[in-house]
Protein backbone atom coordinates (compact mmCIF):
# COMPACT_ATOMS: atom_id res chain seq x y z
CA UNK A 1 0.00 0.00 0.00
CA UNK A 2 1.39 3.41 -0.89
CA UNK A 3 1.40 5.57 2.20
CA UNK A 4 1.40 9.35 2.24
CA UNK A 5 4.20 11.20 3.97
CA UNK A 6 2.72 13.00 6.96
CA UNK A 7 4.73 13.96 10.00
CA UNK A 8 1.59 14.90 11.90
CA UNK A 9 1.06 11.18 12.34
CA UNK A 10 3.51 11.53 15.20
CA UNK A 11 0.68 12.89 17.32
CA UNK A 12 -1.15 9.60 16.91
CA UNK A 13 1.92 7.65 17.96
CA UNK A 14 2.74 9.91 20.89
CA UNK A 15 0.64 8.11 23.56
CA UNK A 16 2.33 4.82 22.75
CA UNK A 17 5.72 6.47 22.78
CA UNK A 18 5.20 8.05 26.20
CA UNK A 19 3.80 4.87 27.71
CA UNK A 20 6.48 2.59 26.34
CA UNK A 21 9.17 5.08 27.28
CA UNK A 22 7.93 4.86 30.85
CA UNK A 23 7.70 1.07 30.88
CA UNK A 24 10.76 0.27 28.80
CA UNK A 25 13.25 3.09 28.39
CA UNK A 26 13.51 4.23 32.01
CA UNK A 27 14.02 0.70 33.35
CA UNK A 28 16.53 -0.02 30.64
CA UNK A 29 18.45 3.13 31.51
CA UNK A 30 18.50 1.99 35.15
CA UNK A 31 19.99 -1.28 34.00
CA UNK A 32 22.69 0.49 31.97
CA UNK A 33 23.41 2.67 34.97
CA UNK A 34 23.82 -0.26 37.36
CA UNK A 35 25.91 -2.23 34.94
CA UNK A 36 28.84 0.19 35.18
CA UNK A 37 28.67 0.88 38.91
CA UNK A 38 29.42 -0.88 42.15
CA UNK A 39 27.47 -0.50 45.37
CA UNK A 40 27.82 -1.49 49.01
CA UNK A 41 24.26 -0.58 49.89
CA UNK A 42 22.87 2.68 51.25
CA UNK A 43 22.60 4.00 47.71
CA UNK A 44 26.33 4.71 47.55
CA UNK A 45 27.56 3.96 44.08
CA UNK A 46 31.08 3.94 42.71
CA UNK A 47 32.19 3.74 39.10
CA UNK A 48 33.08 0.21 38.11
CA UNK A 49 33.62 0.61 34.38
CA UNK A 50 33.45 -2.61 32.44
CA UNK A 51 34.29 -4.76 35.45
CA UNK A 52 30.92 -6.50 35.58
CA UNK A 53 30.95 -7.26 31.89
CA UNK A 54 34.44 -8.76 32.14
CA UNK A 55 33.35 -10.83 35.13
CA UNK A 56 30.25 -11.98 33.32
CA UNK A 57 31.92 -12.97 30.08
CA UNK A 58 34.61 -14.88 31.93
CA UNK A 59 32.24 -16.61 34.36
CA UNK A 60 31.48 -20.23 33.76
CA UNK A 61 28.02 -19.90 35.25
CA UNK A 62 26.78 -17.49 32.59
CA UNK A 63 28.11 -19.52 29.69
CA UNK A 64 26.74 -22.73 31.12
CA UNK A 65 23.28 -21.19 31.37
CA UNK A 66 23.65 -19.83 27.84
CA UNK A 67 24.72 -23.17 26.38
CA UNK A 68 21.93 -24.95 28.26
CA UNK A 69 19.45 -22.47 26.90
CA UNK A 70 20.70 -22.83 23.32
CA UNK A 71 20.61 -26.62 23.51
CA UNK A 72 17.09 -26.43 24.89
CA UNK A 73 15.96 -24.07 22.11
CA UNK A 74 17.42 -26.25 19.38
CA UNK A 75 15.94 -29.45 20.76
CA UNK A 76 12.45 -28.03 21.03
CA UNK A 77 12.71 -26.49 17.54
CA UNK A 78 13.90 -29.80 16.11
CA UNK A 79 10.87 -31.52 17.62
CA UNK A 80 8.15 -28.91 17.36
CA UNK A 81 8.65 -27.75 13.78
CA UNK A 82 8.56 -31.13 11.98
CA UNK A 83 5.82 -32.38 14.31
CA UNK A 84 3.83 -29.19 13.76
CA UNK A 85 4.10 -29.48 9.98
CA UNK A 86 3.12 -33.14 10.10
CA UNK A 87 0.02 -32.48 12.19
CA UNK A 88 -0.98 -29.45 10.12
CA UNK A 89 -0.78 -31.56 6.94
CA UNK A 90 -3.17 -34.06 8.48
CA UNK A 91 -5.72 -31.57 9.70
CA UNK A 92 -9.12 -31.51 8.02
CA UNK A 93 -9.65 -28.69 5.54
CA UNK A 94 -13.41 -28.37 5.81
CA UNK A 95 -16.40 -29.59 7.77
CA UNK A 96 -17.04 -29.87 11.48
CA UNK A 97 -13.53 -31.14 12.14
CA UNK A 98 -11.94 -27.75 11.50
CA UNK A 99 -13.35 -25.73 14.42
CA UNK A 100 -13.10 -28.71 16.78
CA UNK A 101 -9.41 -29.20 15.94
CA UNK A 102 -8.66 -25.48 16.16
CA UNK A 103 -10.33 -25.06 19.54
CA UNK A 104 -8.93 -28.18 21.19
CA UNK A 105 -5.45 -27.65 19.82
CA UNK A 106 -5.23 -24.03 20.95
CA UNK A 107 -6.20 -24.94 24.50
CA UNK A 108 -2.62 -25.35 25.83
CA UNK A 109 -1.62 -21.98 24.36
CA UNK A 110 -4.08 -20.15 26.58
CA UNK A 111 -3.14 -21.75 29.89
CA UNK A 112 -1.23 -19.48 32.29
CA UNK A 113 2.42 -20.46 32.17
CA UNK A 114 2.70 -21.25 35.84
CA UNK A 115 -0.33 -23.54 35.54
CA UNK A 116 1.38 -25.30 32.63
CA UNK A 117 4.23 -25.84 35.07
CA UNK A 118 1.85 -27.05 37.76
CA UNK A 119 0.09 -29.41 35.37
CA UNK A 120 3.37 -31.10 34.44
CA UNK A 121 4.73 -31.00 37.94
CA UNK A 122 1.72 -33.03 39.00
CA UNK A 123 1.47 -35.16 35.85
CA UNK A 124 5.10 -36.27 36.04
CA UNK A 125 5.33 -37.10 39.74
CA UNK A 126 5.78 -40.77 40.30
CA UNK A 127 3.46 -40.93 43.31
CA UNK A 128 0.40 -38.97 42.19
CA UNK A 129 0.99 -38.26 38.50
CA UNK A 130 -0.46 -40.32 35.69
CA UNK A 131 2.70 -40.16 33.55
CA UNK A 132 5.28 -40.71 36.29
CA UNK A 133 3.30 -43.48 37.94
CA UNK A 134 2.80 -45.53 34.80
CA UNK A 135 6.34 -44.97 33.51
CA UNK A 136 7.62 -46.42 36.76
CA UNK A 137 4.99 -49.13 36.68
CA UNK A 138 6.26 -50.40 33.32
CA UNK A 139 9.80 -50.42 34.66
CA UNK A 140 11.26 -47.12 33.48
CA UNK A 141 13.10 -45.42 36.29
CA UNK A 142 11.75 -41.91 35.95
CA UNK A 143 12.09 -39.20 38.58
CA UNK A 144 12.37 -35.62 37.38
CA UNK A 145 13.07 -34.27 40.85
CA UNK A 146 16.36 -36.10 41.24
CA UNK A 147 17.58 -37.11 37.82
CA UNK A 148 18.85 -34.26 35.58
CA UNK A 149 18.14 -36.24 32.41
CA UNK A 150 14.55 -36.90 33.45
CA UNK A 151 14.17 -33.23 34.38
CA UNK A 152 15.29 -32.26 30.88
CA UNK A 153 12.95 -34.75 29.25
CA UNK A 154 10.06 -33.45 31.35
CA UNK A 155 10.74 -29.83 30.44
CA UNK A 156 11.15 -30.60 26.75
CA UNK A 157 7.98 -32.71 26.65
CA UNK A 158 6.19 -29.93 28.50
CA UNK A 159 7.33 -27.31 26.03
CA UNK A 160 6.40 -29.53 23.07
CA UNK A 161 2.98 -30.06 24.66
CA UNK A 162 2.58 -26.36 25.31
CA UNK A 163 3.76 -24.83 22.04
CA UNK A 164 3.55 -27.36 19.18
CA UNK A 165 -0.01 -26.17 18.61
CA UNK A 166 1.31 -22.74 17.70
CA UNK A 167 3.43 -24.24 14.91
CA UNK A 168 0.43 -26.34 13.83
CA UNK A 169 -1.89 -23.34 13.68
CA UNK A 170 0.62 -21.20 11.78
CA UNK A 171 1.34 -23.96 9.25
CA UNK A 172 -2.36 -24.63 8.91
CA UNK A 173 -2.95 -20.94 8.16
CA UNK A 174 -0.31 -21.21 5.43
CA UNK A 175 -1.81 -24.42 4.05
CA UNK A 176 -5.43 -23.26 3.77
CA UNK A 177 -4.29 -20.24 1.77
CA UNK A 178 -3.15 -22.57 -1.03
CA UNK A 179 -5.86 -22.60 -3.69
CA UNK A 180 -7.33 -26.00 -4.54
CA UNK A 181 -6.38 -25.44 -8.16
CA UNK A 182 -2.73 -26.04 -7.25
CA UNK A 183 -3.56 -29.52 -5.99
CA UNK A 184 -5.74 -30.25 -9.00
CA UNK A 185 -2.96 -29.25 -11.34
CA UNK A 186 -0.47 -31.38 -9.39
CA UNK A 187 -2.83 -34.35 -9.49
CA UNK A 188 -3.30 -34.06 -13.21
CA UNK A 189 0.47 -33.91 -13.64
CA UNK A 190 0.63 -37.10 -11.58
CA UNK A 191 2.71 -35.56 -8.80
CA UNK A 192 3.53 -37.80 -5.85
CA UNK A 193 2.49 -36.95 -2.30
CA UNK A 194 6.10 -35.96 -1.57
CA UNK A 195 6.33 -33.75 -4.66
CA UNK A 196 3.12 -31.98 -3.67
CA UNK A 197 4.61 -31.31 -0.25
CA UNK A 198 8.03 -30.33 -1.52
CA UNK A 199 7.04 -28.09 -4.43
CA UNK A 200 3.63 -26.71 -3.43
CA UNK A 201 3.01 -26.88 0.30
CA UNK A 202 6.49 -26.20 1.64
CA UNK A 203 7.16 -23.09 -0.48
CA UNK A 204 3.73 -21.74 0.41
CA UNK A 205 4.44 -22.32 4.09
CA UNK A 206 7.87 -20.69 3.98
CA UNK A 207 6.78 -17.41 5.46
CA UNK A 208 4.69 -18.83 8.30
CA UNK A 209 7.42 -21.35 9.06
CA UNK A 210 9.95 -18.55 9.42
CA UNK A 211 7.61 -16.73 11.79
CA UNK A 212 7.08 -19.95 13.74
CA UNK A 213 10.79 -20.72 14.03
CA UNK A 214 11.71 -17.20 15.10
CA UNK A 215 8.88 -16.90 17.61
CA UNK A 216 9.58 -20.28 19.12
CA UNK A 217 13.29 -19.57 19.30
CA UNK A 218 12.84 -16.24 21.03
CA UNK A 219 10.20 -17.48 23.44
CA UNK A 220 12.20 -20.55 24.37
CA UNK A 221 15.28 -18.39 24.78
CA UNK A 222 13.58 -16.42 27.52
CA UNK A 223 11.60 -19.24 29.11
CA UNK A 224 11.22 -18.75 32.85
CA UNK A 225 7.97 -19.67 34.50
CA UNK A 226 7.43 -23.25 33.33
CA UNK A 227 10.83 -24.74 34.29
CA UNK A 228 10.86 -22.58 37.41
CA UNK A 229 7.61 -24.14 38.59
CA UNK A 230 8.50 -27.69 37.59
CA UNK A 231 12.14 -27.98 38.63
CA UNK A 232 13.11 -24.61 40.10
CA UNK A 233 16.27 -24.81 37.97
CA UNK A 234 17.36 -28.11 39.47
CA UNK A 235 18.34 -30.74 40.17
CA UNK A 236 21.57 -28.89 40.90
CA UNK A 237 21.80 -26.32 38.15
CA UNK A 238 20.89 -28.71 35.37
CA UNK A 239 17.81 -26.79 34.17
CA UNK A 240 18.91 -23.27 35.11
CA UNK A 241 18.30 -21.29 31.93
CA UNK A 242 19.34 -17.68 31.35
CA UNK A 243 16.17 -16.12 32.76
CA UNK A 244 16.20 -18.28 35.86
CA UNK A 245 19.86 -17.49 36.46
CA UNK A 246 19.21 -13.78 35.96
CA UNK A 247 16.29 -13.68 38.38
CA UNK A 248 18.34 -15.59 40.95
CA UNK A 249 21.11 -13.00 40.70
CA UNK A 250 18.87 -9.94 40.51
CA UNK A 251 16.03 -10.62 42.90
CA UNK A 252 17.44 -13.49 44.94
CA UNK A 253 20.85 -12.03 45.77
CA UNK A 254 20.23 -8.39 44.80
CA UNK A 255 23.61 -8.24 43.04
CA UNK A 256 22.69 -5.17 41.03
CA UNK A 257 25.89 -4.80 38.99
CA UNK A 258 26.30 -8.37 37.74
CA UNK A 259 22.56 -8.72 37.17
CA UNK A 260 22.46 -5.52 35.14
CA UNK A 261 25.44 -6.52 33.03
CA UNK A 262 23.83 -9.88 32.38
CA UNK A 263 20.50 -8.22 31.51
CA UNK A 264 22.20 -6.05 28.92
CA UNK A 265 24.04 -8.90 27.23
CA UNK A 266 20.84 -10.92 27.24
CA UNK A 267 18.85 -8.00 25.85
CA UNK A 268 21.36 -7.41 23.04
CA UNK A 269 21.02 -11.02 21.91
CA UNK A 270 17.24 -10.64 21.82
CA UNK A 271 17.63 -7.34 19.96
CA UNK A 272 19.66 -9.07 17.27
CA UNK A 273 17.04 -11.80 16.91
CA UNK A 274 14.22 -9.26 16.76
CA UNK A 275 16.08 -7.51 13.97
CA UNK A 276 16.23 -10.75 11.99
CA UNK A 277 12.50 -11.24 12.58
CA UNK A 278 11.73 -7.68 11.50
CA UNK A 279 13.87 -7.92 8.38
CA UNK A 280 12.19 -11.14 7.38
CA UNK A 281 8.75 -9.60 7.87
CA UNK A 282 9.46 -6.40 5.97
CA UNK A 283 11.18 -8.25 3.12
CA UNK A 284 8.15 -10.44 2.66
CA UNK A 285 5.82 -7.46 2.86
CA UNK A 286 7.90 -5.61 0.26
CA UNK A 287 7.67 -8.58 -2.09
CA UNK A 288 3.90 -8.58 -2.20
Amino acid at each position, binding site marked *: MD*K*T*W*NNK*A*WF*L*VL*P*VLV*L*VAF*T*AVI*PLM*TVVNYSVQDTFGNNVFTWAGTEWFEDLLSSGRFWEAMVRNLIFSFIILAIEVPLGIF*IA*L*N*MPKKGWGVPV*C*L*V*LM*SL*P*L*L*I*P*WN*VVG*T*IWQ*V*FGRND*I*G*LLGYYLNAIGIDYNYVQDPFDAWVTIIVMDVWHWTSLVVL*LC*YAGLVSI*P*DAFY*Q*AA*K*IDGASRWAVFRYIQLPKMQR*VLLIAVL*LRFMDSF*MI*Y*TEPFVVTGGGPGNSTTFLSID*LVKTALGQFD*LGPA*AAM*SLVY*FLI*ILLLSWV*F*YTVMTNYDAER
Partner: protein
Amino acid sequence: MAGANERTERNAMNGSAAAEGLASSLSQSELDKRMRRRGEESRWWWIVPTLYIIVLLLPIYWLINMSFKTNAEIVNSLTLYPHAPTLANYYTIFTEKVWYSGYINSITYVVMNMVISVSVALPAAYAFSRYRFLGDKHLFFWLLTNRMAPPAVFALPFFQLYSAFGLIDTHIAVALAHCLFNVPLAVWILEGFMSGVPKEIDETAYIDGYSFPRFFVKIFMPLIASGIGVACFFCFMFSWVELLIARTLTTTDAKPIAATMTRTVSASGMDWGLLAAAGVLTLIPGALVIWFVRNYIAKGFALGRV
Protein backbone atom coordinates in the same frame (compact mmCIF):
# COMPACT_ATOMS: atom_id res chain seq x y z
CA MET B 1 -1.81 -7.43 4.16
CA ALA B 2 -4.43 -6.49 1.62
CA GLY B 3 -1.79 -6.74 -1.07
CA ALA B 4 -0.92 -10.27 -0.07
CA ASN B 5 -4.55 -11.30 -0.12
CA GLU B 6 -5.13 -9.78 -3.49
CA ARG B 7 -2.15 -11.60 -4.87
CA THR B 8 -3.31 -14.94 -3.56
CA GLU B 9 -6.73 -14.35 -4.99
CA ARG B 10 -5.32 -13.45 -8.36
CA ASN B 11 -3.20 -16.59 -8.31
CA ALA B 12 -6.27 -18.51 -7.34
CA MET B 13 -8.20 -17.15 -10.29
CA ASN B 14 -5.41 -17.84 -12.76
CA GLY B 15 -4.95 -21.29 -11.29
CA SER B 16 -8.58 -22.21 -11.31
CA ALA B 17 -8.99 -20.97 -14.86
CA ALA B 18 -6.15 -23.27 -15.89
CA ALA B 19 -7.57 -26.14 -13.88
CA GLU B 20 -11.01 -25.67 -15.37
CA GLY B 21 -9.52 -25.96 -18.79
CA LEU B 22 -7.99 -29.27 -17.85
CA ALA B 23 -10.95 -30.37 -15.82
CA SER B 24 -13.27 -30.04 -18.76
CA SER B 25 -11.42 -32.91 -20.39
CA LEU B 26 -12.04 -35.08 -17.33
CA SER B 27 -15.48 -35.76 -15.94
CA GLN B 28 -16.34 -34.12 -12.62
CA SER B 29 -16.70 -37.41 -10.76
CA GLU B 30 -13.34 -38.59 -12.07
CA LEU B 31 -11.75 -35.41 -10.75
CA ASP B 32 -13.46 -35.82 -7.38
CA LYS B 33 -12.14 -39.33 -7.11
CA ARG B 34 -8.63 -38.20 -7.88
CA MET B 35 -8.90 -35.37 -5.39
CA ARG B 36 -10.04 -37.73 -2.67
CA ARG B 37 -6.97 -39.84 -3.12
CA ARG B 38 -4.88 -36.94 -1.83
CA GLY B 39 -3.29 -38.06 1.45
CA GLU B 40 -5.08 -35.84 3.93
CA GLU B 41 -8.52 -36.57 2.57
CA SER B 42 -8.28 -40.32 2.89
CA ARG B 43 -10.52 -42.18 5.29
CA TRP B 44 -7.85 -42.18 8.02
CA TRP B 45 -7.14 -38.45 8.14
CA TRP B 46 -8.58 -38.17 11.64
CA ILE B 47 -6.04 -40.47 13.30
CA VAL B 48 -3.20 -37.96 13.61
CA PRO B 49 -5.27 -35.00 14.88
CA THR B 50 -7.17 -37.25 17.27
CA LEU B 51 -4.03 -38.76 18.77
CA TYR B 52 -2.49 -35.32 19.12
CA ILE B 53 -5.59 -33.91 20.82
CA ILE B 54 -5.72 -36.86 23.23
CA VAL B 55 -2.09 -36.21 24.19
CA LEU B 56 -2.91 -32.54 24.69
CA LEU B 57 -5.95 -33.18 26.82
CA LEU B 58 -4.52 -35.90 29.05
CA PRO B 59 -2.51 -33.63 31.40
CA ILE B 60 -5.41 -31.17 31.54
CA TYR B 61 -7.79 -33.99 32.39
CA TRP B 62 -5.46 -35.09 35.15
CA LEU B 63 -5.58 -31.62 36.70
CA ILE B 64 -9.37 -31.46 36.52
CA ASN B 65 -9.57 -34.98 37.89
CA MET B 66 -7.40 -34.03 40.87
CA SER B 67 -9.38 -30.91 41.60
CA PHE B 68 -12.44 -33.03 42.44
CA LYS B 69 -10.59 -35.39 44.77
CA THR B 70 -9.82 -35.18 48.44
CA ASN B 71 -6.17 -35.01 49.39
CA ALA B 72 -6.44 -38.43 50.99
CA GLU B 73 -7.54 -39.95 47.72
CA ILE B 74 -4.82 -38.15 45.74
CA VAL B 75 -1.98 -39.26 47.99
CA ASN B 76 -3.10 -42.77 48.90
CA SER B 77 -4.12 -44.25 45.59
CA LEU B 78 -3.83 -43.40 41.93
CA THR B 79 -7.40 -43.31 40.66
CA LEU B 80 -8.26 -42.51 37.07
CA TYR B 81 -11.43 -40.67 38.05
CA PRO B 82 -12.56 -39.25 41.40
CA HIS B 83 -14.18 -42.12 43.34
CA ALA B 84 -15.60 -39.76 45.95
CA PRO B 85 -16.05 -36.52 44.00
CA THR B 86 -15.96 -33.46 46.20
CA LEU B 87 -16.37 -29.76 45.66
CA ALA B 88 -14.50 -28.93 48.88
CA ASN B 89 -11.47 -27.59 47.01
CA TYR B 90 -13.56 -25.16 45.00
CA TYR B 91 -15.51 -24.26 48.11
CA THR B 92 -12.27 -23.26 49.86
CA ILE B 93 -11.26 -21.04 46.95
CA PHE B 94 -14.59 -19.24 46.79
CA THR B 95 -14.82 -18.66 50.52
CA GLU B 96 -11.25 -17.89 51.64
CA LYS B 97 -10.19 -14.34 50.99
CA VAL B 98 -6.57 -15.24 50.24
CA TRP B 99 -7.76 -17.30 47.28
CA TYR B 100 -10.65 -15.43 45.76
CA SER B 101 -8.93 -12.06 46.14
CA GLY B 102 -6.12 -13.50 44.01
CA TYR B 103 -8.59 -13.91 41.15
CA ILE B 104 -10.07 -10.47 41.69
CA ASN B 105 -6.59 -8.92 41.69
CA SER B 106 -5.59 -10.73 38.52
CA ILE B 107 -8.75 -9.78 36.68
CA THR B 108 -8.48 -6.15 37.85
CA TYR B 109 -4.99 -5.53 36.55
CA VAL B 110 -5.52 -7.60 33.41
CA VAL B 111 -8.60 -5.58 32.44
CA MET B 112 -6.87 -2.29 33.27
CA ASN B 113 -3.93 -3.32 31.13
CA MET B 114 -6.18 -4.41 28.27
CA VAL B 115 -8.04 -1.10 28.21
CA ILE B 116 -4.85 0.99 28.39
CA SER B 117 -3.00 -1.09 25.78
CA VAL B 118 -5.73 -1.19 23.17
CA SER B 119 -6.78 2.44 23.55
CA VAL B 120 -3.27 3.83 23.07
CA ALA B 121 -2.50 1.29 20.36
CA LEU B 122 -5.50 2.18 18.18
CA PRO B 123 -4.34 5.62 16.98
CA ALA B 124 -0.73 4.49 16.74
CA ALA B 125 -1.64 1.48 14.61
CA TYR B 126 -3.67 3.76 12.35
CA ALA B 127 -0.65 6.04 11.92
CA PHE B 128 1.60 3.09 11.07
CA SER B 129 -0.86 1.59 8.59
CA ARG B 130 -1.70 4.84 6.76
CA TYR B 131 1.21 7.24 6.93
CA ARG B 132 4.94 7.44 6.49
CA PHE B 133 6.63 9.75 8.96
CA LEU B 134 10.04 10.53 10.32
CA GLY B 135 11.44 7.47 12.04
CA ASP B 136 8.37 5.29 11.52
CA LYS B 137 10.25 2.13 10.66
CA HIS B 138 12.65 2.52 13.57
CA LEU B 139 9.77 3.08 15.92
CA PHE B 140 7.91 0.04 14.64
CA PHE B 141 11.01 -2.09 15.10
CA TRP B 142 11.66 -0.68 18.56
CA LEU B 143 8.12 -1.65 19.59
CA LEU B 144 8.81 -5.19 18.43
CA THR B 145 11.96 -5.42 20.55
CA ASN B 146 9.87 -4.65 23.62
CA ARG B 147 7.46 -7.44 22.78
CA MET B 148 10.43 -9.80 22.47
CA ALA B 149 12.27 -8.57 25.56
CA PRO B 150 12.68 -11.14 28.34
CA PRO B 151 10.60 -10.14 31.39
CA ALA B 152 13.50 -11.32 33.57
CA VAL B 153 15.56 -8.35 32.33
CA PHE B 154 12.90 -5.92 33.48
CA ALA B 155 11.93 -7.48 36.80
CA LEU B 156 14.57 -5.71 38.90
CA PRO B 157 14.40 -2.21 37.32
CA PHE B 158 10.59 -2.37 37.43
CA PHE B 159 10.74 -3.14 41.11
CA GLN B 160 12.93 -0.11 41.72
CA LEU B 161 11.04 2.21 39.40
CA TYR B 162 7.67 1.46 40.92
CA SER B 163 9.11 1.60 44.44
CA ALA B 164 10.31 5.11 43.66
CA PHE B 165 6.79 6.09 42.65
CA GLY B 166 5.27 4.31 45.64
CA LEU B 167 3.25 2.06 43.35
CA ILE B 168 4.43 -1.32 44.61
CA ASP B 169 1.55 -3.66 45.39
CA THR B 170 -1.04 -1.73 43.40
CA HIS B 171 -3.01 -2.98 40.43
CA ILE B 172 -2.00 -0.09 38.23
CA ALA B 173 1.70 -0.94 38.67
CA VAL B 174 1.22 -4.41 37.19
CA ALA B 175 -1.11 -3.05 34.51
CA LEU B 176 1.49 -0.48 33.42
CA ALA B 177 4.35 -2.97 33.60
CA HIS B 178 2.50 -5.40 31.35
CA CYS B 179 2.13 -2.61 28.81
CA LEU B 180 5.78 -3.32 28.08
CA PHE B 181 4.84 -6.27 25.89
CA ASN B 182 1.10 -5.73 25.39
CA VAL B 183 1.20 -2.27 23.77
CA PRO B 184 3.62 -3.42 21.04
CA LEU B 185 1.54 -6.56 20.59
CA ALA B 186 -1.66 -4.55 20.20
CA VAL B 187 -0.02 -2.10 17.79
CA TRP B 188 1.35 -4.88 15.59
CA ILE B 189 -1.91 -6.87 15.56
CA LEU B 190 -4.09 -3.82 14.88
CA GLU B 191 -1.74 -2.59 12.17
CA GLY B 192 -2.14 -5.95 10.43
CA PHE B 193 -5.92 -5.66 10.50
CA MET B 194 -5.99 -1.97 9.53
CA SER B 195 -3.80 -2.51 6.49
CA GLY B 196 -6.52 -4.82 5.22
CA VAL B 197 -8.99 -1.92 5.03
CA PRO B 198 -8.67 -0.09 1.71
CA LYS B 199 -7.47 3.47 1.98
CA GLU B 200 -10.26 4.74 -0.29
CA ILE B 201 -12.67 4.40 2.64
CA ASP B 202 -10.72 7.00 4.63
CA GLU B 203 -10.52 9.34 1.67
CA THR B 204 -14.22 9.08 0.89
CA ALA B 205 -15.10 9.81 4.50
CA TYR B 206 -12.89 12.90 4.58
CA ILE B 207 -14.47 14.15 1.35
CA ASP B 208 -17.89 13.62 2.93
CA GLY B 209 -16.80 16.03 5.66
CA TYR B 210 -16.03 13.66 8.51
CA SER B 211 -13.51 14.92 11.04
CA PHE B 212 -10.76 12.48 11.97
CA PRO B 213 -12.10 11.51 15.43
CA ARG B 214 -15.64 11.08 14.13
CA PHE B 215 -14.47 9.05 11.14
CA PHE B 216 -12.29 6.89 13.36
CA VAL B 217 -15.00 6.05 15.87
CA LYS B 218 -18.06 5.91 13.58
CA ILE B 219 -16.65 4.31 10.45
CA PHE B 220 -13.20 2.89 10.96
CA MET B 221 -13.58 1.12 14.30
CA PRO B 222 -16.65 -0.89 13.22
CA LEU B 223 -14.69 -1.99 10.13
CA ILE B 224 -11.87 -3.44 12.23
CA ALA B 225 -14.11 -4.63 15.07
CA SER B 226 -12.79 -8.19 14.79
CA GLY B 227 -9.23 -6.87 14.93
CA ILE B 228 -9.98 -4.92 18.09
CA GLY B 229 -11.54 -8.00 19.59
CA VAL B 230 -8.49 -10.08 18.75
CA ALA B 231 -6.12 -7.43 20.14
CA CYS B 232 -8.15 -7.24 23.37
CA PHE B 233 -8.14 -11.00 23.68
CA PHE B 234 -4.39 -11.29 23.25
CA CYS B 235 -3.67 -8.44 25.66
CA PHE B 236 -5.90 -10.16 28.16
CA MET B 237 -4.26 -13.51 27.58
CA PHE B 238 -0.63 -12.42 27.73
CA SER B 239 -1.25 -10.38 30.85
CA TRP B 240 -3.18 -13.26 32.38
CA VAL B 241 -0.45 -15.84 31.79
CA GLU B 242 2.49 -13.67 32.93
CA LEU B 243 3.81 -14.46 36.38
CA LEU B 244 7.31 -13.10 36.86
CA ILE B 245 6.61 -9.36 36.69
CA ALA B 246 3.24 -9.61 38.41
CA ARG B 247 4.81 -11.51 41.27
CA THR B 248 7.76 -9.11 41.60
CA LEU B 249 5.59 -6.01 41.81
CA THR B 250 3.05 -7.26 44.34
CA THR B 251 3.15 -8.42 47.94
CA THR B 252 -0.36 -8.76 49.38
CA ASP B 253 -3.00 -6.30 48.22
CA ALA B 254 -2.62 -6.88 44.49
CA LYS B 255 -1.15 -10.36 44.56
CA PRO B 256 -2.27 -12.30 41.47
CA ILE B 257 -3.70 -15.79 41.64
CA ALA B 258 -0.61 -17.22 39.98
CA ALA B 259 1.57 -16.00 42.85
CA THR B 260 -0.97 -17.14 45.43
CA MET B 261 -0.72 -20.63 43.97
CA THR B 262 3.05 -20.91 44.19
CA ARG B 263 3.32 -19.43 47.66
CA THR B 264 0.55 -21.38 49.30
CA VAL B 265 1.94 -24.62 48.02
CA SER B 266 5.32 -24.06 49.55
CA ALA B 267 3.88 -22.77 52.83
CA SER B 268 1.24 -25.32 53.78
CA GLY B 269 2.97 -28.47 52.64
CA MET B 270 1.28 -29.85 49.56
CA ASP B 271 -2.43 -29.29 49.26
CA TRP B 272 -2.68 -30.88 45.83
CA GLY B 273 -6.45 -30.79 45.50
CA LEU B 274 -6.59 -27.09 46.24
CA LEU B 275 -3.70 -26.37 43.87
CA ALA B 276 -5.44 -28.31 41.09
CA ALA B 277 -8.75 -26.52 41.68
CA ALA B 278 -7.01 -23.13 41.56
CA GLY B 279 -5.28 -24.18 38.34
CA VAL B 280 -8.54 -25.31 36.75
CA LEU B 281 -10.15 -21.95 37.53
CA THR B 282 -7.32 -20.10 35.74
CA LEU B 283 -8.10 -22.07 32.57
CA ILE B 284 -11.63 -20.72 32.40
CA PRO B 285 -11.09 -17.31 30.74
CA GLY B 286 -9.16 -18.92 27.88
CA ALA B 287 -11.64 -21.75 27.51
CA LEU B 288 -14.59 -19.36 27.47
CA VAL B 289 -13.34 -17.10 24.71
CA ILE B 290 -11.45 -19.63 22.62
CA TRP B 291 -14.45 -20.44 20.40
CA PHE B 292 -14.82 -16.83 19.28
CA VAL B 293 -11.16 -16.34 18.41
CA ARG B 294 -10.45 -19.78 16.97
CA ASN B 295 -9.71 -18.45 13.49
CA TYR B 296 -7.46 -15.69 14.78
CA ILE B 297 -5.19 -17.54 17.18
CA ALA B 298 -2.37 -18.04 14.69
CA LYS B 299 -2.74 -14.43 13.56
CA GLY B 300 -2.56 -13.09 17.10
CA PHE B 301 0.53 -15.08 18.05
CA ALA B 302 2.23 -14.08 14.79
CA LEU B 303 1.58 -10.40 15.63
CA GLY B 304 -1.00 -10.04 12.88
CA ARG B 305 1.46 -11.12 10.17
CA VAL B 306 -0.26 -14.28 8.92
